[in-house]
């Protein structure tokens, strides 16, 4: 381990974010500095990995907020080291890719500063040893996501999306904060290591409510049902930001929180059931929404929600094997989703559109992007031997193994839909005829070398990481002789499910979008039911509309008080005096004087 790695892995990017504005006079300097800082942080984070296998993990603590009895510290365990490595590793690759991607944008200082702050915030979040510290970084991550989603602030849609992300996650944050306060009041500590023991004495109902409130924060951050509406809109930001949000920083924070608080709340079966069902329902709903979306980045956004749902399901199974499965899928997802977003970013950067109807036939134009995107898509669809197959299979396997057949069926259906929308996206983008839009493009701006390096690294990761299951198991549970007890026949069932999912999902996608023997529009228009279904999916189950009408109702209610603001000083004084008299009367009546 490099000296003070647990601290420096997040302090370096945070300090780097502060230094970037000082270097803003030269673009090259900012780019070089940011890349160096990001890779240094990644080096520090990765250097912690061998620490896991030592007998005792050091937990460094320093006194802070003595009134609350809170000590600032870093927690060093497999979970935090793994998450820190993912956040800094993917973050460094995204920043390297940004050099070419953002080469024409004048706001480079703001961009790199926020990117470093984002990576540093996430790493700080996962290294935090107590809830208060976690909450602070939780807000840092939220703020960065708001600014980066609204990065193109000259566009109305981008500004709106940034604000929406901030406000929707704020609902979850408020819930998390109430949960933390309840936890502190009932146990008297906020330290993760002490909490697991401290909660043993408290009432089960209270524990469940606290757990659900804390999980509310994860619902907001990880875009689970019902607080998912910000994630599809978040696609207004640059593709690199989407890659970072989806693969490493923002949405993974929710999964991390669920996994981190698992030892605290796992005694409550209600909490576990809630977590797993929220996850499974989100996985299903997001996958269905991805089937009809026309925007390539929106499809990827829905697929992220869906995969995060899988991870939540795995956490909610309630066994250590479930936690392992969720973390294993998190690693796979981080790699293939970063790959897919960066590959999609290459295309968007080159041809300047996100609409899949305006693509098509791009595999001859970008052969290398096509191959890497194909690897990422195969991983997402769960096709062997790519990593998604192993990790998604493990989650479905665990649900069957622990007897949650409802979850298993819903997850399997989701797997079928996943295969369908993945191949739909692949066929629409890369195969078939070139669209009129592409044909008209005179000059296609080819991606640069710094864009290819991260793609190739991540593609290699997609192929390799699936085979590292046993190494990863050793890493996550270094001191216990922990084995995944999986009967042989279950393994067979799981493989059958996976292959059936691929076949059932692939055939319609092939017929509809590759051979084009059946027109998807015809199916939609064939009956009123399919049309209604299509509208339902296209509008995201009307959650968005519902929230907007709610916010308009609140606004109109507040507007109705406008008439009372006359602006005349005498009226205001009169109101003050009236309130004063009421307060005095109340004080005399109830004050006990």
């Amino acid at each position, binding site marked *: 381990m490099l000296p003070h790695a647990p601290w420096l892995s997040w302090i370096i990017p945070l300090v780097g974010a502060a230094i970037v504005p000082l270097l803003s006079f030269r673009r090259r300097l900012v780019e070089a500095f940011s890349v160096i800082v990001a890779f240094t942080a990644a080096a520090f984070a990765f250097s912690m990995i061998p620490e896991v296998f030592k007998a005792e993990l050091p937990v460094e603590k320093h006194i802070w907020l003595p009134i609350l009895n809170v000590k600032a510290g870093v927690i060093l365990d497999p979970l935090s080291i793994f998450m820190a490595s993912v956040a800094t590793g993917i973050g460094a690759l995204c920043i390297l890719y940004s050099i070419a991607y953002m080469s024409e944008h004048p706001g480079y200082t703001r961009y790199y500063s926020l990117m470093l702050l984002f990576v540093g915030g996430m790493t700080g979040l996962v290294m935090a040893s107590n809830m208060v510290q976690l909450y602070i970084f939780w807000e840092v991550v939220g703020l960065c996501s708001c600014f980066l989603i609204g990065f193109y602030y000259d566009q109305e849609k981008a500004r709106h999306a940034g604000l929406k992300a901030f406000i929707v996650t704020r609902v979850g944050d408020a819930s998390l904060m109430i949960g933390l306060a309840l936890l502190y009041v009932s146990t008297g500590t906020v330290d993760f290591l002490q909490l697991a023991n401290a909660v043993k004495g408290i009432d089960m109902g209270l524990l469940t409510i606290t757990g659900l409130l804390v999980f509310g924060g994860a619902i907001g951050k990880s875009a689970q049902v019902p607080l998912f509406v910000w994630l599809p809109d978040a696609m207004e930001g640059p593709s690199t930001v989407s890659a970072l949000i989806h693969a490493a920083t923002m949405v993974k924070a929710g999964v991390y929180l669920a996994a981190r608080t698992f030892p605290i709340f796992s005694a409550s079966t209600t909490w576990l059931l809630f977590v797993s069902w929220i996850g499974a329902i989100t996985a299903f709903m997001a996958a269905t929404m991805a089937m009809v979306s026309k925007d390539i980045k929106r499809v990827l956004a829905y697929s992220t929600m869906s995969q995060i749902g899988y991870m939540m399901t795995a956490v909610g199974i309630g066994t250590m094997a479930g936690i392992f499965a969720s973390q294993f899928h998190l690693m796979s997802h981080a790699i293939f989703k970063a790959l897919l977003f960066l590959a999609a970013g290459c295309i968007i950067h080159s041809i300047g559109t996100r609409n899949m109807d305006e693509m098509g036939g791009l595999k001859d134009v970008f052969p290398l992007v096509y191959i890497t995107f194909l690897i990422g898509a195969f991983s997402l669809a769960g096709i062997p031997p790519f990593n998604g197959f192993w990790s998604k299979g493990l989650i479905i396997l665990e649900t069957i193994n622990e007897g949650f057949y409802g979850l298993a069926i819903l997850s399997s259906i989701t797997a079928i839909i996943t295969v369908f929308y993945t191949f739909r996206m692949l066929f629409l983008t890369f195969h078939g005829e070139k669209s009129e839009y592409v044909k008209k493009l005179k000059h296609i701006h080819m991606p640069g070398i710094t864009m290819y390096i991260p793609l190739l690294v991540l593609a290699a990761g997609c192929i390799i990481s699936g085979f590292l299951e046993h190494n990863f198991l050793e890493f996550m549970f270094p001191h216990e002789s922990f084995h995944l007890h999986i009967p042989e026949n279950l393994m067979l069932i799981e493989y059958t499910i996976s292959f059936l999912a691929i076949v059932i999902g692939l055939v319609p996608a092939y017929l509809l979008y590759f051979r084009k023997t059946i027109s998807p529009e015809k199916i939609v228009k064939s009956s009123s039911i399919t049309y209604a279904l299509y509208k339902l999916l296209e509008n995201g189950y009307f959650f968005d509309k519902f929230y907007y009408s709610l916010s308009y109702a609140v606004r109109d209610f507040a507007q109705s008080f406008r008439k009372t*603001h006359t602006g005349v*000083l005498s009226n205001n004084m009169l109101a003050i005096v009236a309130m004063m008299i009421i307060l005095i009367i109340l004080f005399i009546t109830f004050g006990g004087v």
Partner: protein
Amino acid sequence: MFEATHLMLIASSILYAVSICALITRRNIIQVAIALEILIDAANMNFIAFSNMGLLIDPVAHAIVITSIVIGGCVETAILALAVYVYKHYRTLDVRELHRLRW
């Protein structure tokens, strides 16, 4: 000594009531400024009255009152400066006319 405290409290209440009435009824900014000054004086007098309650006279209250007088002076200056600009802008000192920022 106790008598003096009572008298001062009564006087400060009267000042307070007068200033509140003036703030509600007066329309001229200059008159509002005077009413506000009386309000501050009422509060200051209250402080002085209660500093006399114990065996010793509490000097802290006096110190606070002196500070308060200085701050009151600043507030008055700000209001009078405002009054000058209001007059330049609107050609009137009637507070009811100052509603350009109202809905």
